[in-house]
Each structure stands twice: as structure tokens, then as C-alpha cells.
């Protein structure tokens, strides 16, 4: 058993975890951030995406002990007025919505690295996330719209 500290959306959690405990389970069961979801268990769908220090991670493949001391952001941690969140909402970029928190965080990561992505760059960055409802056109538009909003500010 290992005692680790995780800062999730600004709140510090002190958690006892086994070696094999996955970050996904800590986020859901201890931090209560249930926007982080298991969809495939093999890092292929992106529903379990979390930002660790701003970098996207598949929490279903990540050992929690390795994130001791990390600053984690989940979709719950983003403000409703955040440019990316509001662009997703305005572009109607959610149907069932189950996968959308993952897309949201990938989009955040992209725009923080590349404030003016091309359409191809948006596609490249979202390639590893699956939306089975087929909301890709709206999501794509939302990321472009968020970039524009940020540029205006």
C-alpha cells in the first residue's frame, strides 16, 4: 500500500493505493470525478482522458502511484464559461455525451500547445477519441470556435 497525494481540480486528496491501482479508479472512486470513464480499457477510446500537468493521459492504463504529487484536471474542473466548454455547448457538441469530457480535455491540451490549429491539426489531435454517436463534425467545429474565441480575447 502506498500513500500518494493527488491534486484533482485544485483539491488535494491523500489516497492509499496498491501498486496496481489505476489512476482511473482513484479518480472515480476517491476523487469522485466520474466524468473520467472506462470505455475500452486499452487506451483506444479516450473516455478516461485526464490532464496531468496539462498533458493528456489515458487513466485506464496509468498506475496511480506514478502520479504522486501530480496536478490533475478533469472535465468537472473546467469552468462553465471556459472557452472550450462554452464552444462545445454552443456547437451542440454532445449527444449522449459520454465520451465528450475526453474530447474536451484533448481539445484543451491542443489549444494550450497550439492556439491556432489548422483543421488537420484538430483532426490529428482528436484521432484517438471515439464518439460512437458520431458528433465529430460538431466537435471539430467547437474546437475551431474555441480557438477563435481565445484569439479575440
Amino acid at each position, binding site marked *: 500500500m502506498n500513500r500518494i497525494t493527488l491534486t484533482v481540480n485544485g483539491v488535494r486528496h491523500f489516497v492509499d493505493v496498491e501498486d496496481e491501482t489505476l489512476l482511473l479508479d482513484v479518480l472515480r472512486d476517491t476523487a469522485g470525478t466520474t466524468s473520467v470513464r472506462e470505455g475500452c480499457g486499452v*487506451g483506444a477510446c479516450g473516455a478516461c482522458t485526464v490532464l496531468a500537468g496539462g*498533458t493528456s493521459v489515458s487513466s485506464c492504463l496509468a498506475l496511480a502511484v506514478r502520479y504522486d504529487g501530480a496536478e490533475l484536471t478533469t472535465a468537472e474542473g473546467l469552468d462553465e464559461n471556459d472557452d472550450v466548454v462554452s464552444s462545445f455547448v454552443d456547437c451542440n457538441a454532445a449527444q449522449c455525451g459520454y465520451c465528450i469530457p475526453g474530447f474536451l480535455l484533448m481539445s484543451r491540451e491542443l489549444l494550450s500547445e497550439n492556439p491556432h490549429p489548422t483543421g488537420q491539426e484538430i483532426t490529428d489531435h482528436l484521432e484517438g477519441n471515439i464518439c460512437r454517436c458520431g458528433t465529430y463534425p460538431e466537435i471539430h467545429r467547437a474546437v475551431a470556435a474555441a480557438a477563435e474565441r481565445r484569439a479575440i480575447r
Partner: protein
Amino acid sequence: MPFLHRPTTLAEAVDLLSILDNAMVYGGGTAIQILVKQGILHADNFVDLALVPGLRDIEAGPQGVRVGPMVSLRRMETDERVRATVPLAAAAYHHVANPRVRNTASVGGNIAHGDYRLDPPTALLVLGATVEATSVRGTREIPVREFFTGFQQTALEPDELVSAIRIPAQPAGSGHRFEKNSSLGENDWPCASAAVLVTGHEVHIGLGAVAPTPRHVTFDARGLDDQQAVDAALEAAEPALDPIPDVRGGVAYKRALARVTIEDAVRAAWKEHRNG
């Protein structure tokens, strides 16, 4: 899951590898976690390199880059020095899986996996990279061209870990191209990939997914025009094509796709070399 050891020095890490039963190096952990979940990985011990200092360093100079094993694939595609010194490698790393996997997966783990479908080995073969393998017995250098010994088998001994990869700088004026073709979804594993480097006198080709191991072929390009270069490339590559049939395609299709991939990559690299 096996017992997780978290050494804080390289010496401690190789000590652990030498004394533990059924030990496996835990790098980025992406491939390992998948196998753990599938219930078919039966290592008893993991030696996690995350806490060992210095393994995330990228050193760059005019001769090339030296990359620590825990450098993420993502950094290989985004690091300006890597992009400037070995752009073909940066291009190949860029094509692995998706950004999230590339954030986590490590350069050392990627090559040690030895999988025939991975993208980076194609570029490393072409560029003549060297793997530094470290154990309690010391450090030895393994040319990447001698590293892949069989289907998911490498020249690493069980007690060795990849302590660095050295990639010589791409020659000035060379042309390069990484091409990847999937056969099902666009974002699927490659069905054929090719990294090509065209220098003043020779062409190097690294091939992924077209044989049980990543393959390297080269030929003398002096005096050839672009079509002759393509023909020579296909002729040189022919003996290396030994695809494994699976749901992504039969042998005949995979060979055909490999040839198209090689041709496209050689043409593009050739053009860049000529224009460069």
C-alpha cells in the same frame, strides 16, 4: 499484477533486473498494462524507471541526438532539436497511435517491445541509430539494425535495459519521408509503413508491418533518376517483404500495399533530396 519496484538510480534498476525472478522493465507502461488486463502477462516483478533521474534527457549536438529511455514519444515529435537534427525520426514518432498514447509511451519501451508494426523502428533503422543496453555487466551498444532478432524479440538480454538511443544526425541535403498506410479505419495500426532517407549516394528504407520484424534495406542510388530509384527500391525491398496474414489483409494484399507505400515514400524523399 506483479510486484512493482521503484528504483531511484540506474545502478539500483539494473541490480534489480539481475536478481529478481521474471522481471520486466516498466517504462511508459502502455503496452504492459494492456497485456496485464488481457491476463496473459505473467511477469513476477516490474522495475519501474520513472523515478530514475536523467532518463528523460534529450541531448542534441551536430552529430545527432542521444535520447533517454523514458523520453515520451510525444517529445520526440515536438522537441525542436529532434525535429531539426533527425526530422525523419520526429515524423515517425508523430505517427504512433494517438497523442495520449504518445504522451505516455516511452522511447525505450517502444523499441524494447520489438513489435513489427511500430513506426519508430523504421526511422531508427534508416538513420543507423544505436541502442545502449545497460546491465550489471556494464553498457554495450547495439546497432538498431541488429536489434530486432525475431517476432517481438530483440537482442536485449533479460537483465538488460535500454539506457539510451543514439540517433546520428540526418545528413545535410538528404531527403526523407515517412509513409504509413492502414487497411481498415484510418487510425488503425499500420498495414505497411516505410521510412526513407535519400542521401547523395544511397537510399535507406526502413519497413514496418510488412514482415515479422522491422526491416532495413539500402541500395546505391548514384546515377539513378527518380523512376529508376523507385524500381531499385522495390527490387531491394522485395526479399524483405514477408507479411503475416491477419484480419488486416492477406499476404498478397500486404505485399502490394507495402510496394505502394515504398514507392510513395521513395518518390517523396527523392523529390525532397533533389529540391533540397
